[in-house]
Structure formats: C-alpha cells, structure tokens
C-alpha cells in the first residue's frame, strides 16, 4: 500500500484505530478452496488469537471480511450484501490468486476475475492457496495497516460508491438477490 502518504487522521481516529487494531473480529466468507486453511490458522498450531483476531458470527459484528478464494457471480451478490451490512471501519482481505486475477478460473463463465473492482480490498494474500504462515503474515500486516491508518478501503468505497456500483452492475446485472429462498 502507499506507505509515505500523510497521516491526516484526527487524534480520536488514531485512538480508535489503535484499539480496533488490537481486537480484530473477522467474518470469513468460505468460498473457494481457502476455507480449509483457516482451521489450522485458528487452532493451536498457528493460533491467530494471539494477534487479537477471532471469528465472529455475523457481518454486523465483524471488522474484517475474508474472501477465501474464487467468487462466482452468485456468491459475489451475497458477499456484497454481507459487506454492506458491516459497520465502518471495515476491511476486506482477499485470499489467493483467484481474488487477485481469477487464478486458474480466469476463463470461467461463472467466476469474477478481480475482486477489487467490486469491493475495496485492503490486502491480498497471494498463493494458491496461501499457507497458514502466509495468512498469519498477512494478518500481522493488516493489523499494522489498521494501526497506521493505511487500511482505508472502506473510505474509498464510500467516496467511489458509484464506481463500485457500476462495476457490480456491469458484471452481475443485478445485485439484489431473488432466489427461491428469498421470495
């Protein structure tokens, strides 16, 4: 991310960022293959709770949304729903090459190629799939970015809402979910 940008947060925002960086609750959207890397990251071997991170049940209570792999258009609609339910400040982490550029599904009719066209990604963790070591590294980096006020994706989403909405509509046709379970 842009490291040498001026820090123009107010003192209160700095304090807020300091505290949120020390207690990061995450909602992970287990799409693609990446969900399988989360149990070792959570449990005793790597134990992400020592970073102050933990899983959370609903998007409304979470700070971070983890997208753990490829997203089909159908899933992306639900992810956008989840993201828009979250409270600011909110952060998005994209796992694996599928979220970066489509990965091995670059030519699929069902999956998107670039997650950051639709949601403001603060951090990508590369790999197919990233190992728990890489995920831990990424989380440490994310916490550092939150502390320094560099994870500003949520603000970018607010300020460029039309741009994101336009991309979402171009690729998805419609973001509103109308399936037989939402009738």
């Amino acid at each position, binding site marked *: 991310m842009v490291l040498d940008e001026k820090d123009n947060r107010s003192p209160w925002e700095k304090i807020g960022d300091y505290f949120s960086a020390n207690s990061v609750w995450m909602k992970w959207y287990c799409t693609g293959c990446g969900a399988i890397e989360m149990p070792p990251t959570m449990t005793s071997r790597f134990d992400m709770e020592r970073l102050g991170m933990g899983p959370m049940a609903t998007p409304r209570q979470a700070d971070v949304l983890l997208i753990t792999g490829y997203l089909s258009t159908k899933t992306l609609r639900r992810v956008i729903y989840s993201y828009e339910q979250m409270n600011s400040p909110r952060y998005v982490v994209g796992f694996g090459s599928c979220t970066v550029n489509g990965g091995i599904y670059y030519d699929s009719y069902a999956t998107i190629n670039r997650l950051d066209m639709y949601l403001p990604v603060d951090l990508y963790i590369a790999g197919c799939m990233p190992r728990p070591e890489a995920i831990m590294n990424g989380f440490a980096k994310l916490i550092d970015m939150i502390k320094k006020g560099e994870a*500003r994706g949520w603000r970018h989403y607010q*300020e460029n809402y039309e741009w994101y909405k336009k991309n979402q509509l171009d690729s998805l046709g*419609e973001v509103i*979910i109308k399936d037989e379970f939402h009738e």
Partner: protein
Amino acid sequence: MNSMNSMISDIKAALSPLETSEPAFRQIAAVVKPDGIHGALAYLKNKGFTQLCILTCIDWIEDSQFELVYILFSWTDGIHIQLRARIDREKPFFTTVTDIFPGARYYEREVHEFFGVEFCGNEDLYKPLFLELWDDIPPLRKDFDPQAYSDSKFPMRENANEFLSMTGGGDDE
C-alpha cells in the same frame, strides 16, 4: 459375482438394452432407447435400486445429440447401474422422472440450466438453481465459449499495480 451376473441377465431380459457393459467392479452400464428410460427406472427401483445418485448429461455435438445419464445405486446389493439414452440435440425435450424419483427434480433443473434440456412435467424447471440471471446459451453446451463470456463480463487485471493506486486512495502513487 453371481449376483452381478444374474443382475446383468435380468436387465438384459427385462429392459432389452441396446448395449450393456461393466465399466468397473460392481458397476453395470446399459444404453436404452429414450422411451425406455421410465420403464427401466421403475423396474430397477422395484429391484432395489432405490437411490438416484445423479442425473447428468453429455453434449455429443458432432452427433447432434444429448446423452442423459442416470446412475442408480442399490443399498441391498451394493451395485451401481448407469442408464444412458440419447435424445435429439435440436429438440431437447424429455419427460420428467420425478414421479419415480422425486429427488430428480433438482437434477433436472440442473441439466436444464447447464444444457438446456427441457423436462416436461417438472414444475420448477424454470426457476434458477445455480445460475442467477443467466443471459447466454446454456454454459455446458460445447458451442459455448467461456473465455469470450468471461472477457465480456469480468474485466481482467491489466497491470499489477492497478490495485495499489486504487485503494491506496493517495494522489502520490
């Protein structure tokens, strides 16, 4: 193995399949005429093949045919049976088998979505199952070009730094 052999001869006698084979251990494959599928499924269900494992489809575009594949399993004998029948690709209509296997309702919706085969009698057929708001020919037909569809809908990343300048939000990029 005896039960296998007697099963095969039973099937040959009862269904008069066009062709039978044993693709693997305790598996039987039989090709029948399309109008023989319902009779065959009802007969096999009575013989203990109570589970419809899957209904799927193959696009034989050069023969201009779709091949429907029904795979059944018998929990009493531990045998799989695969029933296949070819229908016309230009007029892809078939009758639902939900009166024999009610669970086929979802498999038929899936085959309809991905291959465009219409199953007359299945009320849910036109409800979207996997593909929401699909706007092209059914995607598992061989003449569908996934790369072209992906290119038209889902932009690729042009250079590696695009992401940095975008969410960095900074003008000093």
